[in-house]
């Protein structure tokens, strides 16, 4: 299968700091892949380069064969990339259902005058928006919260709502930034199942950033490891678990040789 997203020699600097360094990356269509690495490794920066929050200084990012680096975030979303955030960033004072409706924004086309005079096209579109928003809330099991203010929802529900908002934009590629952060083992297990289901139900390609090794190892088909902005390893979960450079990056220099090499995968699992 063809890769849906390709990054070639992507470099992003902040002053003297190289946050992402000549990163080559590919993700196949319909895959679930993860980017991992210690804190400050440049994972979120890479996400921000893909979604247009940052413009990389060098390199090319191609989505479905089209270059997207340097495009405005809203353009990139319209092309079919949606994301969630490490620290949940819902539109807190809007209701849950309104958050989902905002997500549909790039798929709607009518203008303000349609809204003012309520043209038949507008009425039809709004009815569709409403129905689809309820369907999405149904899908993530949040219909009871539909008309509640988003920031009054429980934590887990907010995470799911963020995903529903992203789904509303009908993405082909979904970027999840630490989707299980702050969840207990039970919720984490549910989230893993949910991410798989998402991929199959919506025919998505999913790219995650994740800290929880258990999640990464269970769910990913491919893992890319970053350290100080550079890719240090890439491969299937089993390969990554055994890779000494990964263990070193996570546990510190010298750990790779000796006893800890056996310990690290154990901890990771």
């Amino acid at each position, binding site marked *: 299968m063809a890769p849906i997203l390709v990054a070639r020699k992507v470099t992003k600097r902040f002053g003297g700091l190289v946050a992402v360094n000549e990163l080559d990356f590919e993700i196949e269509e319909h895959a679930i892949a993860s980017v991992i690495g210690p804190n400050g490794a440049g994972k979120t920066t890479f996400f921000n380069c893909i979604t247009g929050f940052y413009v990389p200084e060098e390199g090319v990012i191609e989505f479905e064969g089209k270059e997207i680096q340097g495009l405005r*975030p*809203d353009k990139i*979303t319209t092309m079919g990339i949606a994301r969630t955030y490490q620290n949940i960033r819902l539109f807190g004072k809007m209701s849950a259902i309104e958050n989902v409706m905002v997500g549909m924004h790039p798929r709607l086309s009518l203008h303000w005058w349609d809204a003012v005079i309520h043209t038949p096209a507008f009425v039809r579109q709004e009815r569709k928006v409403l129905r689809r928003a*309820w369907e999405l809330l149904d899908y993530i099991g949040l219909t009871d919260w539909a008309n509640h203010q988003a920031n009054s929802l429980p934590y887990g529900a907010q995470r799911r709502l963020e995903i529903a908002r992203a789904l509303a934009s009908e993405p082909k590629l979904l970027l999840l930034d630490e989707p299980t952060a702050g969840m207990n083992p039970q919720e984490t297990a549910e989230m893993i199942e949910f991410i798989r289901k998402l991929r199959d139900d919506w025919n998505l390609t999913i790219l995650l950033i994740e800290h929880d090794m258990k999640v990464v190892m269970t769910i990913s088909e491919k893992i890319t490891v970053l350290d100080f902005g550079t890719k240090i390893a890439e491969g299937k979960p089993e390969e990554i678990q055994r890779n000494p450079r990964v263990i070193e990056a996570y546990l510190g220099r010298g750990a790779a040789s000796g006893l800890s090499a056996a310990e690290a995968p154990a901890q990771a699992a």
Partner: protein
Amino acid sequence: MNPIWRSTLKAGLLTGAIVIYVALTGMVLSLSQRPVIGKLSLGHVVYMLVFVGMGYITAVRSPWRQERPWLVPLQGAVVGGVGAAILALLPLIGRKVDLGWMFVTAKPELYKFLLFNQEQVARGVLYLILTGAVLGGVAAVLPILPEVLHKALLGGASTTLLLGVLAELVQRTVLKKVLGPFFAYKGLKPTGAAILFVVLTVLFGLQAWWRQKHPKVTKSVAAQEAEAASPLRTTLQLGALLLFLLILPVWILNKDTYLNSVVNLVGLYIIMGLGLNIVVGFAGLLDLGYVAFFAIGAYTVALMTSLGPLGHGYSFWQALPVAILLALTAGVVLGIPVLRMRGDYLAIVTLGFGEIIRILANSDWLKPFMGGALGVLDIPKPKIGNWVLKEEYQLYYLILAGILVTWFVASRLYHSRVGRAWQALREDEDVAEAMGIHLVTTKLLAFGFGAAFSGLSGAIFAAKVGSVYPHTFNLIISINVLSLIIVGGIGSLPGVVVGALALVGLPELLREFSEYRMLFYGIALIAMMLVKPEGFWPKRLKVYPRPQEEDAEASAL
């Protein structure tokens, strides 16, 4: 000393400080000419209310309300008495030392007034302290009474007082037909006040009793969802409201020029408020130069229609769309350079823009076209056919139409793709952009609509007043509009109306207070932020009902 008595004493000292402050602002003396009930003047009321209020607050907060209620009125009496005693120091000291060099308002007349015009100082002081103690004590009785009685007495007393204060207003409206006999030339008659108090107390009591029997349950979201699906009741309520608005100037306000001019001013502020509410309330863009668009609207109509040397002889109806379009264009043009700015930076730049427009209008450079400081005069009133809207109560309908149109547009926009984009922008600009929202168009739409509404308001203003001068359009108008949005409830359409009534209408009606308007603005805003930061009529989430099955089928077909 018992800690409760200690805090009571503290409250008394605080009361004293407040009441001295009130006296030294000059309010007490300057309002003493306005009778409220019999010989009780507004000057008395403003400082006595402090005793009442502090006594009441002390009682509400008193830990003794449950176990030892008989001590609560005593607490109130102490608070009022101590406060009054401190106030009494003012005339006592003032008679020996001249305070006038420091406080302009510390005059012998004030001292005399505070001591109830008594010849003997000691007797005056005694009366003052007794008044404070009695008022504080009586106010402190209310919270220990049963709920219904408490609410009845509080409602009765405050409404009677309010009627006394607004006596002039009452006598100009249709209310006079009912309440006329209770009023003297100015203020209420003592007997009238007593009867009103009793009647109102009974009414409030009945209402409170009814409320207690049928407590208002906060509707669950599910119930709201059901209600949103059947909008019949809202339609009925809207119809009644519209009827009221239609008969307001002619029947209720008796075509009174003064009252209608106040209502019209409120109306113009409502239009502006609805516009700024789009910019600040919906889209979260803090705009402090809002008066600029009001000025552009006003000057456009003035210059196009004026019969004076500067005018061009167009009719109001020709000038109106031009005014709105020009204001809109100005809004968009100002929007372009500030697209990248947020929060305080945006506020400062827009502030500057507001000043630029005013200074341009005032400049010698544009004087040949815009009249400079002398302004533009002889602006004719709007005409519909042969019917000239020259009286305030006639102009009212023009303004009402303006409000209805802007309200309609604002609320339709709010519940659409654009409105949702504005709200998303307000909540989190970066995420909004990442959700596919084009920031440039979305922001410019908000600036454009806000400016257009303001231009409309300005256009009507010019025709209503008949002349425009640059100094009318100063910063204070922008601040007023922003304040009324905040007081009403940011982002809320009914809040704009409530805010305009409270911050524009009320001060106009209480003309005696006009000198202290800024003081009350400040107090109102601070109190607002402390007590009800979400505003008097906060924005409520729109409830989206779940679509019914047949709907789904219908739209699928």
